[in-house]
């Protein structure tokens, strides 16, 4: 029996960390006598953006977290957020293999799977967004808290992306220091931001970028039986966690609607235009990085 040490990019109480714990439990149950996973902790043991390095150095064997944290070394992570094809399909069409190759080359880690991908990101605002003549939104003059991966998209809508530390967001919204933010549906209530956010722009954009990676030597050192077990567990978990998060997102959507967050619904062509802008900024960024994987990733991850 081999024991793999694992870390997660999220504190263990949060929804995403619990999803990973679900995967760990699944492996530990199926893998008795073959392979086990030992959770070492979350951001309290390694800063999230240093965890991938800890895996490639072999200090821990496995990590779960957003691939875009490594976007400075792995521009290919844009294919995760800009992708539209689900994990089951990317296992079949070879997309996962392309990404695996890229992550091994750029980060020195082995990509096992990408659970929790069925996540949409939304723009939430404190004031009502202006509408354009063709039914779209015009966010000019709005300052939105953004992660680097949204910057270009927000700018294309006229908004000014600003960076605000997580801990300062609550007070910033309370005092109107900025006008809104981009965030997934899952977890928006964890920090009680929904108290100040009055509007949510629908449709949601992007896709989850969470991945489970292993140290390549640790992976190679596993018995074939253990490798198979992990691969199967990852594939199964991609489906199970996907369903779980889809359900959770629906629940949250209903909850925040009930709490008074109004939905700004974009329809038909305006919605398509909005989404095009979102997805295209990701692929554009990947293309500009000069990645040799661009064509293969675009083919296997994107089907809009």
């Amino acid at each position: 029996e081999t024991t793999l040490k694992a870390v997660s990019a999220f504190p263990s109480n949060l929804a995403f960390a619990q999803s990973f714990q679900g995967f760990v439990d699944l492996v530990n149950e199926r893998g008795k006598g073959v392979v086990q996973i030992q959770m070492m902790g979350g951001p309290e043991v390694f800063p999230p953006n240093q965890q991938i390095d800890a895996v490639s150095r072999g200090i821990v064997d496995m990590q779960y977290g957003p691939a875009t944290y490594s976007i400075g070394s792995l521009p290919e992570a844009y294919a995760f957020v800009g992708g539209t094809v689900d994990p089951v399909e990317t296992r079949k069409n070879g997309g996962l293999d392309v990404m695996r190759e890229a992550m091994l080359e750029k980060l020195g880690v082995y990509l096992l799977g990408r659970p929790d991908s069925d996540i949409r990101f939304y723009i939430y605002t404190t004031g009502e967004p202006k509408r354009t003549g063709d039914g779209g939104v015009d966010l000019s003059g709005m300052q939105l808290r953004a992660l680097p991966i949204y910057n270009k998209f927000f700018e294309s809508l006229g908004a000014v992306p600003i960076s605000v530390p997580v801990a300062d967001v609550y007070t910033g919204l309370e005092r109107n220091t900025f006008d809104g933010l981009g965030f997934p549906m899952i977890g928006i209530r964890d920090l009680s931001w929904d108290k100040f956010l009055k509007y949510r722009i629908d449709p949601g954009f992007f896709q989850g970028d969470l991945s489970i990676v292993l140290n390549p030597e640790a992976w190679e050192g596993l018995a074939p039986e253990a490798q198979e077990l992990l691969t199967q567990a990852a594939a199964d978990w991609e489906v199970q966690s996907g369903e779980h998060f889809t359900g959770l997102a629906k629940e949250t959507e209903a909850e925040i609607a009930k709490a008074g967050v109004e939905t700004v619904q974009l329809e038909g062509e305006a919605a398509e235009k909005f989404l095009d802008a979102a997805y295209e900024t990701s692929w554009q960024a990947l293309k500009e990085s000069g990645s040799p994987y661009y064509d293969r990733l675009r083919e296997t991850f994107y089907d809009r």
Partner: protein
Amino acid sequence: MSWQAAALLLGGGVIFLMALGTPVVIAFLTVNLIGAVVFMGGLGGIDQLIANATSSITSFALVPVPLFILMGELLFHTGMAVRVFDALDKILGAIRARLAYLTVIGGTIFATLSGSSIANTAMLGSTLMPDMEKRGYSKSLIMGPIIATGSIAMIIPPSSLAVLLGSLAKIDVGALLLAGVVPGIILSLMYLAVIRLHVWIDPEAAPPVSPVSVPTREKALALLRDVAPMGLVIFAVIGLIILGVASPTESAAFGVLAVAVLALIYGKLRWKAVEKALWGTLSVSVMMLVIILASATFSQLLAFSGASAGLVAWMAGFELGPHATLLAMLAVLILLGMFMDQLSIMMLTLPIFMPLIGMQGIDPLQFGIIMLLALELSLATPPFGLLLFVMLGVAPKGTSIWEVVRACLPYLACTLILILVLIWLPGLIIWQ
């Protein structure tokens, strides 16, 4: 390695090296180095340690530390602080220990706007310490109130730490923030009482009451000429936050600007004074931030080695009633607080504490406030207490860490008493 052995190696190592006279930052770095080799393995472990360190202080939340220190140093070296305190002395001349009371009142007001205890203490310390010392206040009557009041910033809303605690523990953030108001005010009142008691026991601790009463006209003039213009500084720091123009983190920069502008108007912005202020700022902020850098990685190592998780799990293994559970948690928090930073403590303990809270039927809000207060204590407990280090940075040469700790003790006791009241009679303090 068992968790006890790991804890002994890491915690004991730091204490031993500090006692040997190794600078605090290097004591942490040395133990980090040994710990990285032992627990993470060889050179790779050391490399990881360094990688972790690159993320430790490149954080926007720490910006107010150097900026508030710069503001205080400028106030002091340009002589602006003296004018204000002279005026206040004139106006409040009949009250013994007036500046100590003002520290608590002013600090509490600022706590309703700033969410960072470290920034708050840095501001109060660098502004008040040098001048109060010159006026003949005893060190303990200066440092105790500054640290105590500075640390209230994380109890009274806004508080970044309460927001993170709420989200990690799944406690309603708004309710938790609101629940901090009453304990914060009670603490502040207790601090005022402690000062009163202090000067009653030891009248020498504060300069004497001014023998002649100053005519009202002169008081009004002093207020207008020397205190009122300081409104510009207060507006720059506090007003811009209230107006939503600047975040509490950013407002420190406007405080610096306002002091510089005022000094210019008063004709006190001499190069000599500015130079002294700049070097003083560098010295204090480097000694703080370099310790934060080293101790953040130390906390991570403590978590990775299993030492702290072992302690928490060990405590959770006892089957205790609600009161005893809260007491045991308090003990664990105090113990971890001696060595770890607040955020790491929260991430480490909450996954184990929260189910226990649920099982015992303890009100999560009650627990949340107790946890916040316990974390507040950790800022001032040796050997690793950031507020102690802030104070040492601005205190006159030769001030020892024990002097600072002794000065804080009565105020720490207030917090401890409040926690005990919260454990047994939460209804007195949490109003829902």
